[in-house]
């Protein structure tokens, strides 16, 4: 369980990124964090594994205060939490297999890992993680030979190889095309459902957040402004989070995503303007083919 108690983060330059966050995320949940750029989504996510340390309050992961952890204890916590990045953060010239095996590094001594000595189980775990992501046949290719979607799957396999309880995803699909985006989000859903791994993801696409997550957390200027089930998100709540209502193309541009019509339906397609609607429908028709 992840628990934020009055958590705050103030950067050294005085910028207050998070303010008084109180939040509880249960095991096995799929949570999406939405909000404008600079609202504190990344910061919130990164306080969970102390890639950014909270400066006030507490962040508890399984009842341990993360912001107080240091050295070995912190590394032990981190190895039980996978992290996915927008830019995949793979070693491009290394093989896919090596990239995934790197997820096991924290389980072994520095000395052994420097010489690349891994027990047989770890090698099997790495290959298994690739199998789970459906890219086992790419194991010995260079990571940069793969497409964006495949690279993000390698990153997911690296996270899975850590044998994590939680996966944090920082804009995991922001640099992927719409079709690949759905495939990768499906992978997240599958990992969440099949292995019971808690997923906390920052999302720019409201429709994807609504479609895939069980629960949505809305941030605005570092404050928690919404926390509730994803199907309860409506126009009014989006205004709360984003400060104004969203246009269709701002939601994602994919109006065929199942829930989006309920979500932004009223204002986006009827009130705002009708041109926008026609445009969006056209886009969806093209994508549907």
């Amino acid at each position, binding site marked *: 369980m992840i628990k934020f108690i009055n958590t705050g983060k103030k950067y050294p330059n005085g910028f207050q990124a998070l303010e008084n966050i109180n939040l509880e995320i249960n095991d096995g949940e799929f949570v999406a964090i939405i909000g404008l750029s600079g609202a504190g989504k990344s910061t919130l996510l990164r306080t969970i594994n102390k*890639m950014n340390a909270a400066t006030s309050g507490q962040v508890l992961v399984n009842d341990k205060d993360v912001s107080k952890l240091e050295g070995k204890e912190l590394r*032990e916590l*981190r190895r039980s939490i996978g992290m996915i990045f927008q830019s995949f*953060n793979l*070693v491009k010239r290394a093989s896919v297999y090596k990239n995934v095996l*790197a997820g096991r590094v924290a389980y072994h001594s520095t000395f052994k890992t420097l010489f690349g000595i891994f027990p047989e189980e770890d090698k099997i775990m790495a290959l298994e993680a690739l199998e789970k992501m459906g890219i086992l046949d790419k194991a010995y290719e260079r990571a940069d030979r793969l497409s964006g979607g495949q690279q993000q799957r390698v990153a997911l396999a690296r996270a899975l190889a850590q044998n994590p309880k939680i996966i944090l995803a920082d804009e995991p699909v922001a640099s992927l095309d719409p079709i690949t985006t759905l495939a990768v989000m499906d992978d997240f859903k599958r990992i969440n459902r099949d292995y019971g791994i808690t997923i906390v993801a920052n999302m720019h696409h409201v429709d994807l957040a609504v479609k895939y997550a069980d629960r949505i957390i809305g941030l605005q200027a570092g404050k928690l402004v919404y926390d509730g089930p994803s199907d309860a998100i409506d126009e009014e709540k989006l205004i709360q989070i984003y400060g104004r209502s969203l246009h269709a193309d701002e939601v994602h541009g994919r109006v065929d995503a199942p829930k989006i019509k309920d979500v932004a339906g009223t204002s986006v397609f009827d009130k705002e303007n009708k041109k926008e609607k026609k445009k969006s429908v056209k886009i969806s028709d093209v994508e549907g083919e």
Partner: protein
Amino acid sequence: MLAAKTITLPSGKTVKQPFNKIIIPAAIAIAVFIVCSWVVLQNKGTLKLYEIGTIFKQLFSPTDYPAMNIHHTWGDYFGYLFSLEIREALGETLRMSFIGSIIGSVLCLPFAILCSQNIVKTKWIYVPMRFIINLVRTMPTMVMAVIAVSLIGMGALAGIIATSIFTFGIMTKMLYECIEALDMGPYEALQSCGANKTQAFFYSVFPQLLPTYLGYFIYNFEINVRTSIVLGYVGAGGLGVILQANMDSIYTRSRVGAILIMMFLLVLLMQAFTRYVRGKLQ
């Protein structure tokens, strides 16, 4: 030329083109060149162009000196070209520069890390480290060789020390600049996996660095071969030693020529080798 130019577009708008500032340093450079040339030409000595032919003949063919009862044949010339003395000196030059390159480029690794702003985030570590490295780099290799020779005596060991320090200085600088330009995303990802700094470095930065590192190593090896030829001049072993020994007398000019041919071939070979290996590393 110097005035700012104004262009009027058909629409009536005017665009003022900024003054091209490159003209000022260019003018200064030209002025400095003219002044320097003038000063140098004050002391021009006597140009003996006609001597070039003689010198080349003395260097690159066997020359007789009947007055000294010295008679050389082409057999002697080629005999010396492939003699044990030259072969040994050649081997020593190569050994010296290879060992020096290895020692220098292994030593530079930890220092390059300590100089990198993106890995060592503490200013009072990387700034003094860089200062030390710059200090090492300002010392001419020749001076280091002279010091090494006076400390441990003539021979290849002095040459190895000089080339090691030279390689160390230049490689550290090249590497830390390279590390700072690397993609730090994977490093962050490794830290998020729970890896410690050393592990994160060797699993994310090092693989990215490796081809560049090897490329720099080969490049430095080539430079070291060339430098260490001259190092022999101050007694630090290698081809330079026999070059210096034969330079004093006019009667051994053909030997100097033979050594020069070998140096030329060696440098040429090294360049071909470097190009081949660097091509493979891409």
